[in-house]
Structure formats: structure tokens, C-alpha cells
């Protein structure tokens, strides 16, 4: 039957162009491996403590949090402004495990903290069965405020400390002390690399396809036999697992000491901005967005000092930063909903055909 007919569409060039985009999207097949070698092998030696502490560790944790939110919002289409609430669950739960089950090794405590956060995400995902879009976002807002309140109100969570804060006990993995910047960096990097690999497996597989199908058209997803409600709840749970672990790392590998206010609504918005700027429905986008959001303040204050001398007011820089973020968010939402990741891909595609096109 197939011999005599030609494809119907006149748009023959589309698949070709798309194939180019595909190739350009992965110009370096060994990219992830090389990144890991650099990140594990070189950066701990090259970067000084300031870079590890103040730039690389928060960058990695924010990337992980972005990844968590992206699974829910970018892949499954369920917008959430409660990310920080689930980060708090992960942080306080991990703390509880470290404190109350001293025999539990740190990696398992992280895993257990993530699992508790996943449970919380699952519960707050239950309304997604009936509620969609804006109203679902409002329920995640409620989750954010509720969780913040819980971790302020009940002193059990912060071991009755008068400051209301939790701090890292001694950080060690398999008997190695990792409380120095290098150790905390390697811990964070290992966790982030592992979870990124898992996310990659998920979004490439049937689970990820179910998620994106629900995002694109949930009614059609149901008709072809996808258990829509179940996969929405799964997305909430997995997303919160990632966010929970990010929250624990934020506390124990980055801040050292945290309280409920470390996970307020501003943090949720920060994570949301990361995925909007980096790219919804992209794994690399989370890293790009997090890099952008971590490096922009640094860049602005450097630029400010270079232009205006030392008289520059840090408050002004902060305001400027907010204005720039606001403008960028609007620009991205309108012009490039798939974020910087997509822009870079297109740019790479242009380069790939450069002698032909320009």
C-alpha cells in the first residue's frame, strides 16, 4: 500500500529543519560526561571557597529546585507557587531524621526527607483532580502559607530552639567529614547529578509522555487511556521529592542554619522565575535559569561599581535587579515561553548551518 503515495504536505523542508535543530540541540554528545568531569574533577580544585560557598552550591541547589518545579509545571502543566513550602518540608523532615535517628546516614536522611516532602506534595496534589489552572495555583499558594505556618508554629520541628532555626549537625558521609566547602559542594553535586539523571529517564519514558500529554490536553489524555488524576498526583509527589531534597541541601549544604522564613513565598517565586527564564519543559533550562539568577546580582554589582565607583548603593542594585527580572519574565512569557534553553538551541542550530544561512 505504501509504495505509490507521497507525503501529502508541501512543507518538506520542515522535517529537515527540525532534524538540524535536533542535531544542534546536542552538538556535543559527550556534553553531560564532560560537564561531570569538570564539575567533579576540576571545580573543587579551581574554585575558591567563596565560589564554592556563595555561587556554585546555591546554583546547584536552585537548579535542583527548578528541576522539581519544572517536572510539575513545565512538563505536567500544573502551575505551582508553593515550591518553597515543599522545600521547607524536606528541610525540616531531614533535620528531624538527622536529629532523632542518629544512626541514619546522611544520604538516607536526605532520601527520607525527600520522601516526606513527596507525601506532602501528593496530598496537596489531590485537589488537582477537580481544580485547574488559576484556582489550582491558588491552592498551591495556600499550601505555601500553610506549610510556612506549620514550621513556625510547632517548636517540635526546630527542636524547641528559641531562635526557631534548624542547623546542620556534623555532616558526614561514610565516615568522611564533609562539612567544608569542598565536601558540601561534592555532596550537592552528587545528589543533583543523580536526580538529574533520574529526571532525564522519567521525561524520556512513558511517565514523562503521560505528563506532557496531560499538559497539552488532559481530556484527550483520558480518552487514550492515561490515568490523568493519578499522573497529576504523581507529578506533585515527584516534584515535591525534588524540592524537598533541594530544601534540605539549601539548609545543610548552603545556609548552615535556616528557619521557615528561608522558605517563604519569595523563594517560591524565585524558583518559578528560574524555570520561566531557563525554559519550561527542559532539563537543561533549570541549570541555565539558575545560573542566570545566581550570576545576575553578581554581574550587576560589579557593573555598578565599575560604572559608578564605590559609592553605589546596594539597595539600588537590588531594586534594579527586581526591575530587570520583572521585565525579563514578561518578555519571556510573551516571546519565548520555552526560555533560554530554547533560545540557545536555536542559536546553535543557526551556527550549525552558518555558512549556508547567513
Amino acid at each position, binding site marked *: 500500500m505504501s509504495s505509490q503515495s507521497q507525503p501529502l*504536505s508541501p512543507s518538506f523542508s520542515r522535517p529537515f529543519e*527540525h532534524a538540524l535543530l535536533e542535531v544542534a540541540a546536542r552538538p556535543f554528545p559527550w556534553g553531560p560526561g564532560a560537564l561531570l568531569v569538570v564539575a567533579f574533577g576540576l571545580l573543587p580544585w579551581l574554585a575558591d571557597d567563596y565560589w564554592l560557598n556563595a555561587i556554585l552550591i546555591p546554583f546547584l541547589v536552585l537548579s535542583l529546585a527548578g528541576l522539581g518545579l519544572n517536572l510539575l509545571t513545565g512538563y505536567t502543566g500544573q502551575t505551582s507557587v508553593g515550591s518553597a513550602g515543599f522545600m521547607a518540608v524536606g528541610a525540616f523532615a531531614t533535620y528531624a531524621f538527622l536529629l532523632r535517628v542518629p544512626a541514619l546516614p546522611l544520604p538516607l536522611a536526605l532520601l527520607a526527607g525527600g520522601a516526606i516532602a513527596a507525601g506532602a506534595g501528593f496530598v496537596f496534589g489531590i485537589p488537582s483532580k477537580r481544580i485547574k489552572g488559576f484556582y489550582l495555583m491558588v491552592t498551591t499558594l495556600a499550601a505555601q502559607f500553610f506549610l510556612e505556618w506549620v514550621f513556625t508554629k510547632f517548636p517540635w520541628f526546630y527542636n524547641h530552639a528559641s531562635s526557631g532555626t534548624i542547623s546542620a549537625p556534623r555532616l558526614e558521609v561514610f565516615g568522611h567529614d564533609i562539612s567544608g566547602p569542598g565536601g558540601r559542594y561534592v555532596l550537592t553535586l552528587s545528589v543533583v547529578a543523580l536526580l538529574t539523571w533520574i529526571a532525564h529517564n522519567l521525561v524520556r*519514558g512513558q511517565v514523562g509522555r503521560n505528563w506532557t*500529554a496531560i*499538559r497539552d*490536553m488532559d481530556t*484527550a489524555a*483520558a480518552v*487514550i487511556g492515561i*490515568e490523568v488524576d493519578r499522573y497529576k498526583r504523581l507529578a506533585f509527589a515527584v516534584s515535591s521529592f525534588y524540592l524537598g531534597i533541594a530544601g534540605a541541601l539549601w539548609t545543610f549544604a548552603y545556609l548552615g542554619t535556616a528557619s521557615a522564613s528561608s522558605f517563604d513565598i519569595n523563594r517560591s517565586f524565585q524558583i518559578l522565575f528560574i524555570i520561566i527564564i531557563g525554559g519550561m519543559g527542559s532539563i537543561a533550562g533549570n541549570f541555565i535559569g539558575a545560573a542566570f539568577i545566581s550570576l545576575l546580582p553578581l554581574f550587576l554589582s560589579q557593573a555598578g561599581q565599575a560604572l559608578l565607583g564605590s559609592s553605589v548603593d546596594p539597595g539600588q542594585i537590588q531594586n534594579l535587579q527586581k526591575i530587570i527580572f520583572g521585565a525579563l519574565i514578561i518578555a519571556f512569557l510573551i516571546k519565548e515561553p520555552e526560555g533560554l534553553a530554547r533560545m540557545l538551541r536555536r542559536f546553535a542550530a543557526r551556527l550549525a548551518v552558518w555558512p549556508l544561512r547567513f
Partner: protein
Amino acid sequence: MNAPQAADPILEVQDVSLSFKGVKAISGLSFVVRRGEICALIGPNGAGKSSLLNVLNGVYRPDSGELVFEGIHYRGITPLEAARRGIGRTFQNNALFKRMGVLDNVLSGLSRHARTGFFAQALGLPAARGEARAFRELAEHTLEFLELQAWRDTPVGSLAYGLQKRVELGRALIAGPRLLLLDEPMAGMNADEKREMSRFVTEINRSFGTTVVLIEHDIGVVMGLSAHVVVLDYGRKVGDGTPAEVKANPDVIAAYLGAVQQEGART
């Protein structure tokens, strides 16, 4: 159709009625679809054809009446359950996953056949990899069958309308449905594209033995495609039989054929 199959009904619609806020969309409709046939559902716009497909796969619940699919009676059923029982479906206004590529759209039709669990997929265990490979192979066959390979990775939102219709057919087909409901699979196509789509439908029916119920306005296409035509008008059945019988039925001529010529002229 050969004789032994013709005796065996796969789907019975029994006195089904459906209304929307008092407006009757389907009234007391009964007919039988035999296993292995292509049954065409025709009638002017608003006759209740799409609503009927929606009743068949559980998008709507009829006010009264019953359906029997492969001997099992049902009325209220979820679309998910209908899919599980082997009822595949395409929509009048394409219901594809627009930002996903053609291959992924087709693969999504296999979702309910996935046997490997979440953790096996998350950790890339051999079972999950094996299943992914098998699915991918099946999807490649489907793309080949529908001649869609050239657009394998193109997001379907950017495809021409006729191609989208084919992708939607592929997504329903890959799950191996025993009953395929196609809502105007040839709407908005030119004559060549219609012939091509007719060929695919016939081929599916012949090679896989899939029973097809399809809605189509173009009477010429219907006559060439199906041996059984059911005519609806204002939610009622006004004709049921072979194309020749239906064509000769004065009620059908009065109620439908004139109207369709007007419709056709408009669209």
C-alpha cells in the same frame, strides 16, 4: 464483509437518548454495528453524530438507553474505561498533544499498555529499557503504515491539518482498538487527501480486522468506503442500511441529502 462476521454484533446502541439542558441531541436511537465492518454515520450538522461518539466512549452519559460492546452492557463509563475495553477514538477538532512530536504523540497511545512501573523507568532498569524499545518499534511501524516517518520529531502543532488527522489516527491505532470511532477524519481535506485517508481506513479495517464507526459529510466518500450507513437527523435515525438502500430512502433524501449539499456548498 464475509458472512460469519456479519452475524456477530460488536456494538449495539439501544434506545439511547441524550440532551443538553433540555435540548435533545439524540432521541431514542438504536442500531447495530457488526464486527469487522465500516459503519458510516452521516447527517447534517447538529444531527447528534459527535454526541453519539461521545456517548459510545464515555465522554457523555446518555439520559436513557443502553449500549452493548462485545456483549457487555454499559451506560455510564469513563473514557479511560472505554479505552481499556478497546474503544479508540479521534475527534472532530483534533485533540493532539500539540507541543509533542509525532512519534511521542503516537507513543502516548500505548500508555495504558505500559507494564513497567515508575521506579523501573526512573532508574532506567533493563525491563523499562526493553519496553521502551518494543514500544518504539511498534510506533515506527505505525508511522510507516501511515506514512508519517518524515515528520517523526516535528511538533504536531506545526503540521498541516491533514497530517494532524493522520497522527491522531495513529495514536488511536497503536493501542490496538477493536472498535475505532473516527469523527470526520476527512474534514477540511482536498480530494487527494480524502482518498488517501479512505485508503488508510480501509487498510486498517482489512489488515487488523478493526471495526470502524466513522462520521463523514462527503457522501461520495462514504459510499465508496462503507457497506453500512446510518443516517441521523435532529438526533433521530432516519436511515439504516447499505449505501444503495439509504440513497433510495425518501426520508433520507428529504432530511439529509439536500441539507448536505447546502452544507457542502458552504464549507
